[in-house]
């Protein structure tokens, strides 16, 4: 479902996210001009309702921005910021167009500090930590879920990067929270990892579409033995295989989006993340095979996308984690009737 906001985002990324942008970002340079355009377009608030100061567009429309950003290899924390604002809005916390990030709160402890609250612990692999104004997470205290929005001004980050050169930093947290930095929320804390997994599924689906497109273009242009390599059946079979996997990845990610009601449906997100991750295995491997040596260079754009999907598939739950979660549910649920499980209570699909 493409829409005005998604079209606009696509056009903006086409103009502003070039090979140079991605290369500079991978060298650690913050893309301030790009972020400014993203802010001006209001994209960080895509999933926030109008009452809370956002766009009030449908969830599937808002989430399609994440897929489109993946397709352009947008080298800033747009997915993370969209998600951070959504979580903040769910808890009634302030939203903002500044760069933000999200982390699984497993490494953090929330405790009472006099009349206020304190958060402490170690965070590893914080996406874009050094560039984020706030880190949003979900924590539990005495059985109650909270969203926390932690200011990064006082934090020191130990920098590190994922395979694609995207920041994945570590930091120690010891913060006393102000009133607008924590609020109860009527969602379980694993909403965070489920939403994160859905975001990464969408980003992977988008990136894989671009990888396929690059391969088709390359196969039509690259001439060997007197003809474009796309004329060879071996190459055609590879590209057809990739097309199937890319279509499956998109279908898997959108399956997760369609089941997003007030929050993601955990088992559908599990299936989406697992399936997009598996698709990225086949598609990236064949993409490099089709491209030959040029695809293995810094200079050529392919690696920006293949490295991203290789990183994203391990983030917010690995394929192993999600397949185990889904498998356990399938074996326990619906008294072990696999077909009932897959089709769900109404045939619409797994929901529990």
């Amino acid at each position, binding site marked *: 479902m493409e829409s005005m906001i998604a079209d606009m985002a696509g056009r903006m990324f086409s103009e502003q996210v070039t090979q140079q942008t991605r290369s500079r970002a991978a060298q650690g340079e913050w893309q301030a001009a790009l972020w400014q355009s993203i802010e001006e377009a209001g994209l960080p608030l895509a999933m926030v309702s109008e009452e809370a100061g956002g766009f009030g567009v449908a969830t599937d429309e808002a989430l399609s921005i994440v897929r489109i950003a993946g397709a352009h290899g947008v080298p800033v924390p747009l997915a993370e910021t969209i998600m951070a604002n959504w979580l903040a809005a769910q808890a009634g916390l302030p939203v903002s167009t500044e760069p933000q990030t999200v982390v699984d709160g497993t490494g953090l402890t929330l405790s009472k500090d006099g009349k206020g609250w304190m958060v402490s612990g170690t965070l590893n692999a914080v996406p874009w930590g050094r560039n984020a104004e706030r880190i949003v997470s979900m924590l539990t205290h005495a059985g109650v879920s909270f969203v926390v929005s932690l200011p990064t001004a006082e934090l020191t980050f130990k920098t590190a990067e994922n395979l694609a050169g995207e920041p994945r930093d570590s930091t120690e947290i010891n913060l006393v929270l102000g009133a607008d930095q924590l609020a109860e929320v009527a969602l379980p804390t694993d909403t965070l990892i489920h939403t994160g997994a859905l975001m990464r599924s969408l980003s992977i689906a988008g990136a894989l579409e671009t990888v*396929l497109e690059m391969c088709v273009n390359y196969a039509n242009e690259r001439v060997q033995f007197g003809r474009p390599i796309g*004329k060879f059946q071996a190459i055609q*079979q590879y590209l057809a295989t990739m097309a*199937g996997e890319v*279509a499956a990845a998109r279908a898997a990610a959108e399956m997760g989006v369609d089941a997003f009601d007030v929050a993601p449906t955990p088992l559908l997100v599990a299936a989406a993340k697992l399936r997009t991750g598996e698709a990225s295995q086949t598609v990236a491997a064949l993409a490099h095979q089709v491209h030959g040596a040029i695809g293995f260079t810094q200079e050529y754009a392919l690696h920006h996308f293949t490295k991203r999907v290789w990183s994203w598939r391990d983030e917010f739950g690995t394929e192993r984690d999600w397949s185990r979660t*889904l498998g356990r549910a399938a074996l326990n649920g619906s008294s072990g009737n*696999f077909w009932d499980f897959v089709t769900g209570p109404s045939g619409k699909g797994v929901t529990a």
Partner: protein
Amino acid sequence: MTMIDFPAPSIGSDFAVLRQEVRDFLKQEMAEHTPLMRARSWNGFDREFSRKIGKKGWVGMTLPKAYGGHERSPLERYVVSEEMLAAGAPVAAHWIADRQSGPLILAKGTEAQKRDILPRIAAGTCSFCIGMSEPDSGSDLAATRTTATPEDGGFRVNGTKLWTTYGHQADYMILFCRTGKSEDRHGGMSQFLVDLKNTKGITIRPVIDMAGEHHFNEVIYDNVLLAGDALIGTMGGGWDQVMSELAFERSGPERFLSSFALIEQLIALVRLDPTEQQEIEVGRLAAHLMVLRRMSRSVAGLLDRGENPLLQATIVKDLGAIYEQDVPRLARSLLSRPAEPGSADSYSAVLAQTVLTVPSFSLRGGTREILRGIIARGLGLR
């Protein structure tokens, strides 16, 4: 754009009431069916069963009421189809007629053909086979040699069709053959409605498959006279007609549920005390199936809107065959029980049956290589 679009299945396409009706019916109707019988599923030919589900209104569901149909959507038909296949119902006697011959006759047939055939298809009493492949024309359908030569009173047909599934049982064949010479490789082809039970000069010989089953046949046309009104659609328009038929043939749940009986056997054995590896692999089986279902339902939605989703259908079939064919390997990686034809152990018997059937999954309805060639062209490879 190179992306092949699979729009989301329509909202409300789950049809829970219909699904439950089908489940209840099958539970009762198939109470005596063994796992091995279920594993044969759409190879199971049972006219009585087809007649019963025709009575329920579950054959020819999308056909107009004027022709005995029920005017239900392809998505409702999808629900019935997948429930039949998941249960391993013996659907062969009506499957081809319901899936593609009925829609073809509705789209291209004469009024007389529609009135004569469609009500019987919807009743589940009329069985069809497909006359496409020949000894020298497998993947290369344009190499078809069987000819229908116009003459006074109709067409004279000569040639041999091969791999004709249930040709020995079917009432009718949709015959694809050459009716004229053409410069264009795809021109000069036409389709005919052949009454196999009441036409002289047709010899049907069995071809036994490697599992020992008889569903394939060789169908020989020796100077067979077909009446002029046997032509379906336009003279010389056969190629395009076949191409639109293929979207129906390639996208359905039979393209990914063929090994489902083995999945069920496997899960029954690992369910109570699964190892970590078993949980992981069952999770993968579930995720892939969930996505294939979504894609197949998406194609049903496209058919519903009158589009020709040949490319999407081709992708569903290619991905579906990979899934179905991987099940025996997966089962062996999770359980140390051998495949044993006719074993009293239902898992071993179903594994044996499945092992002997899976090679056909990437051959029937278009080989993997042909499908991928179609997809590659769809991607714009020049």
